[in-house]
């Protein structure tokens, strides 16, 4: 009890010193790549994207530090509020939201278009981490214990599917499954799950929207309709491939500058970067991201309590899933699902969500010795 008191009594400056400044530097480096790419996307102009992105980054950085220095027990206690608040917002957008991209996905708060599904990903990680925090290994092995985690995961998944946003629901399932796996759930559960998923694909196909089916179909054969639905993938591959090893050079990305590349400032920002900077640039960005993963991994391992471990690794998994999905998408490995590259793509919500996530990860580090009680 006393130790907990002492831990929570760290003053703000000591906590700041405890922050993972290396991770902050890595985040800054990745964001800078994003800013350079956005500057190029606007044809060598800070407007309209790079300048705003920078402002958002500054705000996000402040939020991140705040989140990191706030006592982890506060977040622990706040978990359910965040989770159910997020669910409430999802219901809210379902009932009364703006219609955009054929799906209702955001709430306009004036300064930012909040996507509750982004918030929900963090909330699910928080909720699962809290649920498994106090559980013993024996408990986790019992299948009945997993009913609540399943509900934690499936409730938002169901709501997100209603939007409909297949990509995000799949991501929530994967992150959730990752935490359940880390917590020690029986391995056969996952193997069985994977088999069951494979078998259910033909059934799920029936429930997909027409545009989603089309995306999958054109993914399987993008050249079949180069000017239609396969356009994005084809153009993106052309941009990447024509970049070559050395790239076309800063501001020389013809594909993106001439608007052949769709959504170049958001989902296809990686393409723009790799077209102009080539394989070297692409590998540099991937390398920085790998270092971030590694950093998060280290934080999770050094953490002394389960809540922190699950939270840090869960959020890192969430971040890395974004990276995989976005980059595989632009390289034509998976269908176009419309996921941004966190920290790099232009967009307020994704920037804020990513930095809040890193805030929580750092919070786990700063408060790694805290005694978090159930």
């Amino acid at each position, binding site marked *: 009890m006393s130790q907990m008191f002492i831990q929570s009594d760290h003053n703000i400056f000591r906590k700041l010193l405890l922050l993972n400044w290396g991770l902050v530097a890595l985040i800054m480096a990745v964001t800078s790549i994003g800013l350079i790419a956005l500057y190029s996307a606007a044809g060598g102009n800070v407007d309209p994207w790079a300048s705003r992105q920078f402002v958002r980054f500054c705000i996000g950085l402040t939020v991140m530090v705040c989140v990191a220095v706030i006592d982890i027990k506060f977040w622990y206690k706040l978990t359910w509020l965040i989770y159910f608040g997020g669910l409430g917002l999802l219901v809210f957008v379902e009932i009364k939201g703006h219609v955009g991209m054929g799906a209702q996905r955001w709430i306009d708060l004036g300064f930012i278009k909040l996507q509750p599904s982004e918030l929900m990903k963090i909330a699910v990680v928080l909720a699962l981490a809290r649920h498994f925090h106090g559980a013993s290994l024996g408990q986790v092995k019992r299948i009945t214990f997993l009913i609540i985690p399943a509900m934690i995961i499936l409730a938002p998944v169901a709501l997100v599917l209603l939007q409909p946003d297949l990509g995000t629901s799949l991501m929530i399932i994967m992150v959730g499954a990752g935490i359940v796996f*880390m917590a020690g759930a029986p391995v056969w559960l996952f193997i069985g799950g994977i088999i069951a998923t494979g078998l259910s694909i033909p059934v799920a196909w029936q429930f997909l929207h027409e545009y989603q089916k089309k995306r999958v179909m054109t993914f399987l054969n993008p050249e079949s309709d180069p000017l239609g639905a396969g356009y994005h993938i084809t153009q993106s591959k052309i941009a990447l491939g024509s970049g070559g090893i050395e790239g076309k050079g800063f501001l020389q990305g013809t594909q993106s500058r001439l608007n052949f590349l769709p959504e170049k400032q958001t989902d296809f920002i990686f393409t723009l970067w790799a077209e102009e900077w080539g394989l070297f640039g692409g590998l540099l960005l991937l390398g920085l991201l790998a270092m971030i993963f590694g950093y998060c991994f280290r934080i999770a391992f050094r953490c002394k309590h389960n809540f922190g471990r699950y939270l840090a690794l869960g959020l890192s998994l969430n971040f890395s899933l974004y990276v995989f999905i976005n980059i595989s998408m632009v390289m034509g490995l998976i269908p176009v699902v419309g996921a941004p590259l966190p920290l790099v793509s232009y967009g307020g919500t994704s920037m804020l969500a990513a930095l809040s996530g890193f805030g929580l990860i750092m919070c786990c580090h700063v408060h790694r010795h805290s005694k978090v009680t159930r």
Partner: protein
Amino acid sequence: MAFREEEHIQSFSRRAIVIGILQFLGLGILASRLAWLQISQGSKYKTLSDKNRINIRMIAPLRGEIVDRFGVPLAVNVQNYRALIVPEQTENLKDSLKKLQKYISLSEEMIERIIKESKKKKKFVPLYVKEDLTWEEVAKIEVNLPDLPGLLIDEGETRNYPYVESTAHVIGYVRAVSQEELTGDPVLTLPGFKVGKTGIEKVFDLDMRGRAGAVQEEVNVHGRAVRELGKKPMESGKRVALSIDGELQRFVQDALSEHKSASAVVMDAYNGAVYAMASHPSFDPNMFVKGIPQDVWQSMLNDPTLPQTNKALAGQYPPGSTFKMITALAGLEAGIINSKTTVNCLGSFKLGRGKFHCWKKHGHGWMNLTTALQQSCDTYFYDMAVEVGIKRISEMAKRFGLGEELGFEIKEEKSGLIPDEEWIASRLGKKWQPGDTVNATIGQGYILATPLQLAVMTARLVNGGFSVRPWITGYVGDKYKGADQWPKIEVSGQYLKMVMNGMDAAVNTKKGTAYSSRILNENVGLMAGKTGTAQVQSITAEQRRLGLQNKDLPWKQRHHALFVGYAPVGKPRYVCSVVVEHGVGGSSAAAPLASKILEHVQIRDPASTRIHSFEISKPHTGKDTENKTFGPFLPLKRTVE
């Protein structure tokens, strides 16, 4: 509890490492995919990306000019101002065009055409609104540009015909490409591109078209040009130099215009070069370039005088008395007549139950060949008809270029008609009657000839019997297209001389039918020729009794007036044929025109000047001997004595 805690941590560590490995594996997959795309697929995608961003834009070639034999331009390219509109920049295309109507004349059908076109093209592609804006219109638009968003004034080249209606039939005109004319040549799809539709413009369309240039442009995804990468200049089309004399052409056209409908050909008796070819009424070819208004077009189509038709080539008329030289030659060659043969003309000729009238009611009295041609006595020719027979006459006519197409460059020419027994059997299913031959001797009945054929006939009569054919193209680019030498026809020079004497007498002696039209200008040579008055319908007994004057009949029933002639008399160089449709009388309507024309052509003397070649400095090749062979009035090939 502690032990289980430890176990829990170990379990977490194992599983966390599994996830970590998966994360790095994922990154590894991304990195290798990136390397594959950028290294081994690099060059493939590089070409794809170039194709994506490089667009080839064509530059319209400059159309080759058409000049006359002196190098005077007959068809040129002039700068014009055109109004273009970019639909993307207008709020509403139709409203903008309606607004434009306030400043320039723009018909509803034109607006409809533009709107129709706009639906086929991308929104940023400028559309042609109107060509050939006047200065006033340009100024009005410029002043009101703020009020007319999307409107542009563009400068371009357009075809112009400075001789206007004088050369309309020969030169023809260019017009916008029609759907059927799209041959796949990409240049045809250029906005505002025009192709030759008639006349020389059509004949040498491909030569004059030239080759389009191209600009390589970097474009964005919408096809909008961002930067120019490379340029291949266009190649102008070839210049075409004609044998005609523009001034003479205009003179002839003006001369014809005193009649309702007429045509004339002036050509060289020796080499066949056409110096002038006119058909009246004419039209303004520039009107077709700009886009002819529907009502003007309709009225041209309905006009009985056929302003669109080149009647010098495509008008077919009974040659009337101008045919008598052919009959005479046939008679002479058959030995049925000779220079001493005389016939007493009493005003008519009886054959079986048929009675054939001479134009002179009470007869000419005793006639020989020369006086028969001089006074155009019909009876003299009627008399030999049966003995000579249609076979000899038609055969002779064909030797002189009648009844067949002459292979003139402008393909609008008609073949005329020289009938014989086979023809009447196969085409009309009738048997040839001796009376038909009687009619044929004076160029009536079934016989038809075009003014061009009559000119060729005359040329072959007076050049010593060389089978000249007409041509009008001197040079296409630097290639000589003219002709100088023609094979001999089998005909006795002596007979030709006898016929020419008759033609001389017809013009230059008091009793001649064209005496009043003889050339009085002493600076030029005299002309010789033969009048012709061709009946359009037979004169009824009633009309004959009433002595009804042909000129009092409705225009369509009046006789055609014809004249064929040459000058100068002693050394023929120029031949001329004139046909005045329903002009009543050859001596009253056609001969005066021919006289004016043959006088003027001698003053102009186009034969003394070589056709203007493109490269003046280039030494003449042996083939271009037009001038070396024949000096003015000094034909080397003359065999007529």
